């Protein structure tokens, strides 16, 4: 089967530059919004997903749906920390971090009237080993027994008094900022960390909110869960740390994704309508050419394919432009409230090569859909009518 040379389509497209450009640009904008919104949703999800590790378990009081609403007695944390399934550090001590979890209001930089609810987590000194992807970016770790805090790097610069050496005030006390830490892009980077024993008396009394433990055998999670949840000495729910944080992102993440698809779908319909118009006009104005092609012996199927390719090509160009337009957004830090934990979480837009590819693919799909009926009409055009 003879294929109509692509050059014909490319040349024809160039013959109507304005119309082509407008259509391509319309597609481009849809793709930009698509990529932008999914990058937002993905960034949020990524931050929370990276927050947990498969190797760790998070223990909360039974029935609590977040660290905020949980409460664990010292007795409970002591019992579980001593369990055999807990991994041991190089010094022989169990890798466990019983933690205090509270929300404190902090004044935002430049806008002292607006207070944001920031997570303050009282951790054990083991936390730096229990959680694998932590790194001190600046300063040194808080010393035991001191009113010192280490700030996740997403807080730095966005809130007042966050530089190393400065003093933060919350919970009725002053705390010296002694370091900044990074945590592999996870939600921890939006938190204030201090020593759990220091936080306890200030906030909740003699109780922790959660216990994070490293399992020596991550595959044994199900057994551990069954054993500890059935243990009469304690009343707990055991979660795999990675799963837990992923669920925390579920509600907002789902909303963002639904929103992304909804908005881009509606925009896409508009762009497709634009493509349809353009292609129908193209077919109509090129009727004599089509007639000639059919007379020469090209099959209707070739004509159909030819116009589909043309439409897809215009959309492809639009898709590429749209992807490029979306790129600058990558890495921009934004914040919102994670309603599950009622805390502020900062995260960055995350554009992956996969997302860019999806955007371009989405564009081509729009082009094919938009071009289908016009191409169909072109293919079915009676030669005589076309040549008139």
């Amino acid at each position, binding site marked *: 089967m003879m294929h109509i040379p692509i050059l014909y389509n490319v040349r024809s497209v160039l013959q109507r530059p304005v119309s082509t450009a407008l*259509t391509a640009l319309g597609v481009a904008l849809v793709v930009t919004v698509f990529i932008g919104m999914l990058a937002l949703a993905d960034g949020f999800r990524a931050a929370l997903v990276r927050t947990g590790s498969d190797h760790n378990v998070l223990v909360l009081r039974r029935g609590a749906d977040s660290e905020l609403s949980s409460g664990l007695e010292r007795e409970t944390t002591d019992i579980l920390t001593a369990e055999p399934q807990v991994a041991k550090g190089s010094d022989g001590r169990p890798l466990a971090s019983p933690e205090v979890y509270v*929300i404190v209001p902090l004044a935002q930089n430049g806008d002292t009237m607006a207070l944001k609810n920031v997570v303050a987590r009282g951790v054990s000194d083991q936390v730096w080993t229990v959680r694998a992807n932590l790194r001190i970016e600046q300063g040194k770790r808080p010393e035991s027994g001191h009113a010192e805090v280490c700030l996740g790097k997403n807080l730095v610069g966005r809130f007042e008094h966050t530089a190393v050496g400065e003093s933060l005030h919350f*919970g009725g006390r002053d705390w010296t900022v002694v370091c900044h830490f990074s945590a592999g892009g996870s939600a921890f980077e939006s938190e204030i960390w201090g020593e759990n024993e220091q936080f306890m008396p*200030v906030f909740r009394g003699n109780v922790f909110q959660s216990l994070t433990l490293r399992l020596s055998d991550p595959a044994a999670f199900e057994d551990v869960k069954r054993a500890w949840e059935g243990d009469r000495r304690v009343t707990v729910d055991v979660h795999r740390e990675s799963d837990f944080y992923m669920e925390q992102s579920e509600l907002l993440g789902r909303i963002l994704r639904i929103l992304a698809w909804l*908005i881009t779908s*509606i*925009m896409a319909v508009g762009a497709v*309508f634009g493509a349809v118009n353009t292609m129908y006009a193209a077919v109509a104005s090129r009727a004599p050419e089509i007639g000639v092609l059919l007379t020469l012996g090209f099959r209707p199927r070739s004509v159909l394919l030819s116009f589909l390719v043309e439409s897809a090509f215009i959309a492809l160009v639009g898709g590429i432009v749209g992807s490029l337009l979306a790129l600058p957004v990558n890495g921009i830090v934004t914040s919102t409230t994670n309603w599950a934990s*009622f805390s502020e979480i900062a995260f960055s837009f995350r554009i992956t090569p996969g997302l860019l590819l999806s955007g371009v693919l989405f564009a081509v799909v729009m082009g094919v859909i938009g071009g289908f009926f016009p191409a169909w009409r072109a293919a079915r055009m009676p030669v005589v009518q076309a040549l008139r």
Partner: protein
Amino acid sequence: MKFLPLLWANLTRHKRRTVLTVASVALALFLFASLRTVVTTIARNAAAGSAQRLVVQNATGLVFPLPLSYANRLATVSGVTGVSYANWFGGRYGDGKRFFANFAVDPATYLDLYPELQLPPDQREAFLHEKTSAIVGQRLLEVFGWRLGQDVTLQGTIFPGDWTLTIRGVYTPANRSIGDDMLLFHHDYLDERIGRAGIVGWYILRIANADAAPQIAKTVDDQYRSSSSPTKTGTEKAFQAGFATMWGNVSLLMNTIGMAVVFAILLVTANAMMMSARERTKEVAVLKTVGFSDGRLFGLVMLETGIITLAGAAAGLGGAKLLYRATNFNAAGFLPGFDVSVATLVLGTSIAFLLMFASGLVPAMRAARLPVVQGLRTVE
């Protein structure tokens, strides 16, 4: 107007193109109105708090409780005409996927301080007298299929266990900013079950004179400043506004997308208009021969564009307004009172006009400027 048949004939010449273009405009403006309404709803709800109610929280943070014992002292503060308190319960119903606000309150004083929660008197009495009863917002009956008099069981998250309550009242909010999907039950019941801990989540104070708010707030906070549970008092308005900021950069996001949408549509409309114009060069020349002036042709093209954009605007904006009204949409409880405001409609219409000018200008000017002789010579 007498030129209507000519305009109409031109618009229906390519029915499909016209319909698609109108539909594109409608979709874009529907989207625009929806996005903008998210922003306006958040803003409106933020400003909706009463200026005559103050909220007293624990200064350490929203999540920390205050002693129940403060109630009596607060009532004696000068300027305060009523005191109530509430505790965030955070319970879930069923599979827990549908979030709704539920809290424990002091029934008599809470209903007194919140006349916006409208209840039939008999239901009110029933609620007040039964310790394990609850009142729910109208919408929850639809969402969960509850009925008046039914027992419902909530899973406690902060206060663990199963909590069974009897629905004795269904309230309707007096204004749209107050959610119609809350559940309120007796604080006494909560307190009793958790072993008389004597704590509340926050206090609400009604004051006689809104202007005295800062003064009264300071009095209260000064009183408890050095206690173990220091307070932070502010107007309910400020309290609501605080929640609004939790949405973060949503406004910026919505506005940006809104602009992108409008721009995309502009391209589609402009393209359609230019295509139409290009096909009619000969006819424009003929009309000029007959005696239609340049200015008149300019006007006709603009008018034609205008009909398309305004028809699309009516469909899109009107559709949004009606849809959200009819479905009583409130984003699963997060955006109560979601309603396309008049300001948004006006803004949307202005955009339609902008669209008309932007996409019609080039074809209209081309038509106006077309030299007749050249136009007649073109072989279409």
